[in-house]
């Protein structure tokens, strides 16, 4: 890696999800010349690409779209505004002065940006980091993996899993299960009440999935594939439930590893990059928007708005 090419741009946006794309569009509309969106996936659009259900787009487009429809629409809009989107391009290193190292199938390169926007989104906490006891068989995943398997590849990781968690995303997970012919054996919540009230109650009765409160997962049992789980209710009584998978939903954690590996400061409680009111990071060349800075996480529409707001701050900063 001796002769690395270095390019320059006005603003580099890391992440082509709702917040990154709305920011890029706003920057373009404000007259910023070279705005490049870098996304490591082969297709831009971010998480909505695999949320095969409505409602997306109400605030932005005044219509109800599914996630994939919405993702296509925001990408198209960005392209119409002249935003350059570099796909299959992974940002691997952030350095001072807006120096980014990129890896793509064409090779490793550097990009020097006057301003950088981190819009890398959020994901769910995997089983490992939750320290759940038991074996480590196949069939354990998060909603993100389930949804991308179902909506992008028409595949399913299990047929009768236990669903852990009752956040809004858990509700989407039940919809995905229904769509894919997956019949969860139960949905469990360790607190007295579900994290979101009505949708889960509704979902549980609507989808025929028993909701068990004050219940936690004690152990995962299985050889090659998940065979059963042990759960414990409020009275501590343990029960073994046969199932072929465990779906860990929610417990969002920012996809902020790039920032964590860099000179940027993180919020010690949330793990999000530390930002001021204008989304500015500890290094003033860097900004962040969207779900990488939101804890608790927000819906796509709010991330879209966050991108617009922070992009305006960047425009002000560049011109002032």
């Amino acid at each position, binding site marked *: *890696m001796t002769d690395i090419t270095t390019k320059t741009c006005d603003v580099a946006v890391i992440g082509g999800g709702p917040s990154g794309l709305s920011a890029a569009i706003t920057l373009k509309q404000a007259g910023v010349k070279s705005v490049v969106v870098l996304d*490591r996936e*082969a297709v831009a659009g971010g998480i909505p690409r*695999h949320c095969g259900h409505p409602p997306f787009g109400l605030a932005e487009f005044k219509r109800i779209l599914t996630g994939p429809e919405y993702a296509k629409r925001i990408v198209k809009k960005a392209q119409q505004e002249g935003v350059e989107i570099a796909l*299959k391009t*992974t940002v*691997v290193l952030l350095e001072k002065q807006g120096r980014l190292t990129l*890896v793509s*199938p*064409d*090779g*490793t390169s550097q990009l020097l940006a006057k301003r950088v926007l981190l819009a890398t989104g959020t*994901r*769910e906490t*995997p*089983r*490992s*980091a939750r*320290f*759940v*006891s*038991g*074996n*480590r068989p*196949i069939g354990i*995943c*998060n909603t*993100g*993996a389930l949804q*991308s*398997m*179902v909506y*992008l*590849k*028409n*595949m*399913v*990781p*299990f*047929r009768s899993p236990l669903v852990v968690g009752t956040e809004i995303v858990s509700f989407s997970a039940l919809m995905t299960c229904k*769509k*894919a*012919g*997956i019949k969860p054996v139960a949905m469990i919540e360790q607190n007295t009440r579900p994290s979101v009230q009505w949708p889960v109650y509704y979902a549980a009765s609507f989808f025929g999935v028993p909701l068990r409160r004050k219940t936690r997962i004690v*152990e995962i049992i299985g050889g*090659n*594939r998940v065979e059963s789980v042990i759960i414990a209710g409020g009275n501590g009584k343990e029960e073994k439930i046969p199932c*072929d998978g465990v779906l860990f939903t929610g417990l969002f*954690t920012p*996809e902020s*590893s790039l920032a*964590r*590996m860099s000179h940027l400061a*993180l919020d*010690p409680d949330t*793990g999000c990059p530390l930002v001021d009111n204008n989304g500015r990071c500890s290094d003033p060349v860097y900004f962040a928007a969207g779900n990488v800075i939101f804890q608790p996480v927000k819906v796509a529409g709010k991330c879209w708005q966050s991108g617009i707001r922070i992009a305006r701050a960047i425009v002000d900063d560049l011109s002032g």
Partner: protein
Amino acid sequence: MKSGGQVISTDVAIIGGGVVGCAVARRMALAGASVVLMEKAPDILDGASKGNSAILHTGFDAPVDSLEWQCVQNGHQEYLEIHKSLNLPLLKTGAMVAAWTEEEEARFPGILEKAHKNQVNDIRQLSQAEIHKLEPHLAGNVRAALYIPREYVIDPWSAPLAYLLQAIENGGQALFNAEVTAGGYDGEHWLLDTPQGQVRAKYVVNAAGLYGDIVDTRVLGDSEFVIKPRKGQFVVFDKAAGNLINSVILPVPTKITKGIVLFPTIFGNMMVGPTAEEQESRDDASVDTATLNALHEQALRMLPALKGIPVTATYAGIRSATEQPEYRIREEPERNWITLGGIRSTGLTAALGIARHVETLLKGFGAAFEKRQNPVVSRVPNLANHLSRDCHTPGYGEIVCHCEMVTDREIKAALSGKMPAGSLSGLKRRTRVTMGRCQGFYCSARLAELTEDKFETPLSVGEAHD
């Protein structure tokens, strides 16, 4: 794969595809023997070799004058000689034995004396200034420390893969899903039964690890040792912790265990572990919440800067210990059989040395092979974080696993060739796919597609349908 009825003839049959069996296969293939390795799982490394600390030991704390010490020393040396040619990585970390209490420090003279007896003469005591310079993030109350410069970190899965691959490239053969269920000796040849057919061999090496005693009992009629499985759990921290320590931080060892270690991995992470838990099961590598929490807390105590750094993974390995704290090598010259039993907590390092020992023993049995001239030397893909990876060479298609930067070119290569992955975990060990921070959140779909119809237990159980 061979069909049920057939008989494969070979000079040396090796039972078990752990790191020891793979190293023996390589050694004997290079020595000129025909070799067949039989592994009961669909891929190599299904036992003790699946989860270890990946430290290349010097043997400074090995039992003095023991065979284990000899094999560790020889293994360490040979690894250094061959690793470059096989493209196996080496992280020159060094190790630090840290004492936090007076009692621990009081054991230093004993450790030094033992190290010197074990010919590890470059061990030395560090000054406070040196401790701080070498490990600035360690909790400030370290009283004293010893430094062992040649304790290194390696890739625990690519090494055995490279050994077996070299055996295969030099005429060897490996059978998977080939559990040795029975066998008999006719005075000249062994005939071993496996679901993949029978193997007829002049010499047999039992390297069945956690099942070594069971195989001996099954085939020889008795076993000289009893396997006492000892589980070790680990917590793997995010790569952000990778630069918090430079060396392997060893506690002052006790009689039972080397203790809880903090160490960098070759993949750029930092780990804490292993525990030492006696158990009945030879297969149950489960983790448990209480132990993981305790490990996590201990790591934070030793390295306060870990606070807030996320956990990437947790896992456990099972040591094939026996009722005695030593290797249990059984030699049966009358029946041309060797059992490599009780290769407990140093087998990754010692494997190449054990293989050398096997060659010597077989010579003693009267085996005479013609050393292979100009053997094929085959390189395995590099997975080490500090060296160039596949994604650094253009034309890789796309990155499938973003956390570990695994390309689809890499995955396709690992699914083909002379040693294709036989299971999803085999693929993970060959590429690191899904082994990073998100544990498959982003890449499971693509991975399910790439591995469709490849494995007996696939990621996807079928189509999505209403």
